[in-house]
């Protein structure tokens, strides 16, 4: 058979190639090659999808574990920064992984090029895949097809890409392992949870006797307040008044405070403290007669017992502690109270006051309580306001202390003392627990004052001063 070629009638190109008998025509041979390439492409794309899935899973698991650990280990503000950074980094990594996976996807030509490279086929397959759809295939097209088909065994999908499972499968496994180690470790070392393991009884306090004091929102140890809606609204109003009084001219400190609050809430949720583990504090209206029934124990002695337990949980100021759990609470001296209230503030003995005592007109017993505790020369005191105010010459000196800031915020304590003219005419001793609430925008952390070492030659003079 001759064909026109270059102006001559010449025999058709005699190509001596071996190929399977069942594949006889060029189109059939082309179909066989393209089918094999399609299989290879599916395999490559499956691996690309697996790669994205495995890496994304690993990133999410690891980021989640790290955020959980940060929620357990870090202070609210630090957690907020670290958590946000981790979340952003994880998001960026997921996006980068998705983009890399998209770039890894194999088109038909790309799959052919990969096969060419790995089987050293010198562009045979890529040429076929690219040229096949076009009509201009040239005189040597049958030769190209047969030449490629002769190498069919060299570009089997299993040979070109041996893996069915992407090699990065170890990444999610490693991430899960790391998370499995990290999460229990974080839970075990979380101080708040350790504290929560103690018994958390319910405490009933009288709202009218509440004295709000700053607290650290990040260290609330899961205290939850419960009351009827009217009581809660009164409490909110009281808190708002306190906040408005102290927080006029809200600035960056307010934003910081809100950030702390937000972080604290997120931390609580991550720790799983929402609900069951929270300490329950039941509030009631001060002048509600039937409110006594809302006290689950029903007696003040039980309530007093709860106070002591709360002392150990660190919810009260340390002047109530002092290793004196068995010491009865100071009695209410009515005459002293009357004298105290009648005495102008300027006539009072000079000395540092507790932060909450500025608003103590409604609860003057607080001052007497402070005085009583001051006379004891509290050694354990760590709060800045009461630190070092002991006036007893016998307890003036001791080892130098190095108090540190336990928290970066305020502690709002709720104190209620029975008053003669208050809602509780019974006058029975009752000390409600302190409740930690979020930091007011304008409030500042209390600063502890260190007890310094006093030289021996100066002690006599100091003792004389205090003996006066």
């Amino acid at each position, binding site marked *: 058979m001759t064909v026109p070629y270059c102006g*001559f009638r010449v025999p058709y190109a005699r*190509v001596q190639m071996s190929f399977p008998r069942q594949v006889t025509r060029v189109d059939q041979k082309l179909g066989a090659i393209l089918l094999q390439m399609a299989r290879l492409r599916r395999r490559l794309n499956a691996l690309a999808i697996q790669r994205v899935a495995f890496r994304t899973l690993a990133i999410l698991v690891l980021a989640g574990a790290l955020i959980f650990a940060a929620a357990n280990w870090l202070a609210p503000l630090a957690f907020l920064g670290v958590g946000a950074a981790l979340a952003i980094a994880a998001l960026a990594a997921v996006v980068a992984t998705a983009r890399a996976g998209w770039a890894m996807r194999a088109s038909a030509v790309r799959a052919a090029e990969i096969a060419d490279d790995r089987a050293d086929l010198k*562009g045979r397959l890529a*040429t076929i895949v690219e040229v096949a759809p076009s009509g201009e295939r040239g005189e040597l097209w049958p*030769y190209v097809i047969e*030449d490629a088909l002769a190498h069919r065994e060299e570009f089997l999908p299993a040979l070109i890409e041996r893996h069915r499972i992407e090699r990065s499968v170890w990444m999610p496994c490693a991430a899960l392992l790391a998370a499995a180690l990290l999460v229990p470790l974080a839970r075990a070392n979380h101080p708040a949870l350790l504290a929560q393991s103690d018994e958390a009884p319910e405490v009933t306090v009288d709202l009218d006797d509440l004295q709000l004091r700053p607290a650290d929102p990040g260290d609330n140890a899961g205290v939850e307040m419960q009351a009827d809606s009217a009581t809660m609204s009164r409490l909110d109003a009281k808190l708002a008044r306190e906040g408005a009084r102290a927080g006029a001219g809200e600035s960056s400190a307010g934003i910081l405070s809100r950030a702390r609050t937000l972080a604290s809430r997120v931390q609580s949720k991550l720790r799983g403290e929402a609900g069951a583990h929270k300490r329950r504090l039941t509030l009631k209206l001060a002048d509600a007669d039937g409110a006594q029934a809302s006290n689950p124990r029903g007696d003040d002695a039980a309530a007093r017992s709860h106070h002591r337990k709360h002392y150990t949980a660190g919810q009260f100021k340390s002047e109530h502690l002092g290793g004196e759990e068995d010491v009865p609470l100071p009695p209410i001296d009515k005459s002293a109270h009357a004298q105290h209230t009648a005495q102008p503030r300027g006539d009072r003995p000079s000395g540092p006051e507790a932060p909450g005592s500025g608003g103590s007109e409604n609860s003057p017993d607080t001052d007497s309580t402070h005085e009583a505790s001051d006379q004891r020369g509290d050694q354990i005191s760590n709060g800045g306001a009461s630190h070092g105010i002991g006036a007893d010459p016998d307890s003036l000196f001791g080892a130098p202390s190095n108090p540190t800031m336990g928290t970066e915020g305020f502690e709002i304590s709720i104190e209620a003392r029975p008053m003669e003219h208050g809602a509780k005419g019974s006058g029975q001793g009752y000390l409600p627990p302190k409740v930690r609430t979020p930091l007011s925008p304008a409030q500042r952390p209390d600063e502890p004052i260190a007890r310094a070492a006093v030289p021996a030659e100066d002690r006599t003079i100091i003792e004389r001063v205090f003996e006066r």
Partner: protein
Amino acid sequence: MSELAAVETPTVADFARTFRRVQAEIHKVIVGHEQAVEELLCALFAGGHVLIEGVPGTGKTTLVKTLGVALNLSFNRIQFTVDLMPADITGTRVILSGDDGRREFSFAPGPVFCHILLGDEINRATPKTQSALLEAMAELQVTVSGTTYPLRPPYFVMATLNPIEMEGTYPLPEAQLDRFLFKVRLDYPDEEQLVRIISSTTGPDEAGVAAVFSGAEAAARIEALKLLVREVIAAPAMDQYAARIVRATQPEHSRYVGHSPRSMHDEMVNRYVMFGSSPRGAQALIMGAKVRALLDGRANIAREDIEAVAIAALAHRIMLNYAAHSDAIDAAQIVERVVKSARAARG
């Protein structure tokens, strides 16, 4: 073309076999220079012309003569000198007396009318004379006194350059340089090759070169092989790869070629290249790659084929600036760098 004898269409295997036979015949005389000989034959079967650069005594003229003998094609040699005129190359009209005593102008063909033309030391002639070859090389025809005379295919011009004796020479115009498909370098032989050259050329018997083709069908066979080369399939990706390499030889802010993507450019190109390759460079890359693909038994070209001929196809088309001459950078180094960048860019 119609004067060519009818021959069978060669196959891919025929091409490789013929190519190797010619190569073997040439190496009976030429010692070493394997790459140069292969590039020379690549250019021949790709339908281009070759510029051979080498110091004196490296076998440039011998190589061309041997090729002519092996291919069994007509061969002419022109020694280019300063006083060589264009008519000395193309031919001229002369007055001839007929048998009847009448005198008439008749065209006397110059040495350009042959199959294989060797222009020895082409840079010694003036640019006017050098440009006399332009039409012959590009269009396979010569125009003298308004009359166009076609050249017989295959037509293959090999010009030699002496890179040392630059005094009294005229560098080839860019337009003429661009018409050479490849530039082949003949380096000085090493000691072992030199010993073989001495022993083979100073004895009583000189190596005889046998013609690969018979005289009647040599031209037709070679033309058929050249047509087969053009049938080799170049996928669009290969054309794109060649185009990318050629574009990458242009400096980034060249006012002649416009803006190019930043990723294509190498700092070396921007620093040392005054003007990069012309589009003929891309054609040379593809044609050379097609010949190499056939030699490898393939009817499709691969990136490796393009990269293999890149220096021969592009180096003489790149104009370097003074900084390159100052830093002893040659065009081959630029092409190597460009190819490396292109290879890295495709991953």
